[in-house]
């Protein structure tokens, strides 16, 4: 679908820079979900993801000239800013990642787990997803980034390389190593309940 001239990102950004709040809101609504998902999948923390999204759009608001339309799409630029914020966030994090985080209302992790036919299945599925989430979050950050971009965001290698600012070969090798680690971790998590049930 072709975006109308007046709704193009760069046009909206120019309008926003001149003080058009509607244009800024439109830009925000267009890109916030992708930024939030990326930040959430990378950090596993809804508070951190929220802060990162806010930071990304604050940067855009305060210094819209940082974005150069000739160098790529605004989405890619915002990903770049979000990525930097995620990396900064990671630097300040302890190495241990909790398996489950509580929301402010105490209802569980920031990631909403949906669907389930029976309570038992629901519990099992939920557990499995938490394990996957924990396994992803335990990956070293550069491998995690490759996995999030290529597997969760479903970007092509080329797009992921562009986002991460590295060659395709680097993305491929990071993904390869990330996958290996992830599989090992998932295998280990799968075998733990099995061993536990055998012991019983």
């Amino acid at each position, binding site marked *: 679908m072709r975006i109308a001239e007046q709704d193009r990102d760069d046009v909206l950004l120019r309008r926003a820079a001149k003080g058009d709040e509607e244009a800024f809101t439109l830009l925000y609504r267009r890109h916030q979900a992708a930024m939030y998902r990326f930040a959430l999948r990378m950090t596993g923390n809804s508070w951190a993801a929220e802060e990162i999204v806010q930071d990304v759009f604050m940067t855009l608001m305060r210094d819209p000239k940082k974005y150069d339309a000739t160098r790529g799409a605004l989405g890619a630029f915002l990903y770049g800013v979000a990525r930097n914020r995620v990396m900064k966030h990671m630097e300040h994090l302890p190495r241990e990642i909790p398996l489950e985080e509580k929301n402010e209302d105490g209802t569980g992790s920031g990631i909403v787990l949906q669907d389930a036919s029976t309570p038992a299945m629901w519990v099992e599925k939920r557990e499995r*997803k938490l394990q996957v989430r924990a396994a992803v979050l335990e990956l070293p950050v550069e491998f995690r980034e490759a996995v999030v971009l290529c597997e969760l*965001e479903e970007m092509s290698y080329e797009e992921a390389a562009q986002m991460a600012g590295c060659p395709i070969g680097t993305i491929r090798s990071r993904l390869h190593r990330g996958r290996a680690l992830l599989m090992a971790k*998932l295998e280990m998590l799968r075998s733990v309940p099995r061993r536990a049930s055998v012991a019983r």
Partner: protein
Amino acid sequence: MKCEEFEAIGLDAERDASLSEVERGAAREHASTCSRCAALQDSWQAAGVELRAFAEDTAVAQAPARVEMRLRQEFRTQHVTLKVRRTAAIATWALAATALLVGVVSWHSWRRSRQEVAANHLNSVPAANNFPDNNSATRANHKNSAEVPDGMLERGSAGAGSSETLVADNELSGFTFLPGAFAADTDEAAILHVRMQRSALGALGLPVNEERAGEWIQVDLLVGDDGLPQAVRLPQ
């Protein structure tokens, strides 16, 4: 394709657009012949399913509405502040320009009024006061200067007023030639309007009414090119 190659590029060969069809074919062939790599691929596909399930759970995740609210608030604050600053800057410059303009106009009118006061003062003060001793050289060098007898006032001859008082005029009617002067000598003469005491007319050889000797009168002197008065006229 070898196992190492397969691990590096073959696991996701179907999705990797940078691979050629030949490489994809080789990966497929290797997976069909190597049980270890086939198991690895199965394992990866199982992990992929789990990853996709995890991705689906977060697929609809969005930043909470409060983020948008905070950003919009910040946007308003920033742009209102910017507008206020801009308006303040423009107002400051406008005020400064107005003040400067008012200053210039005031100074100009003050200068003009001072000149007028000075001119009025000169009109009302005797010539002796307007020609201090140290100014005598200037007076002597003046183009149309005349040797004016004591008690005479050369109106406006000091400084700026001179152009107003020295009027070249060829109209010689009404002039009374002083003793020893001839009408033929007046070709290069200039008319000088002066204010003097009536008694000073005596110095020019004219009769003076003693009762009105102290009275200030306006006279026209016809001054020759030698700087000496040739004739005098008493305006009606």
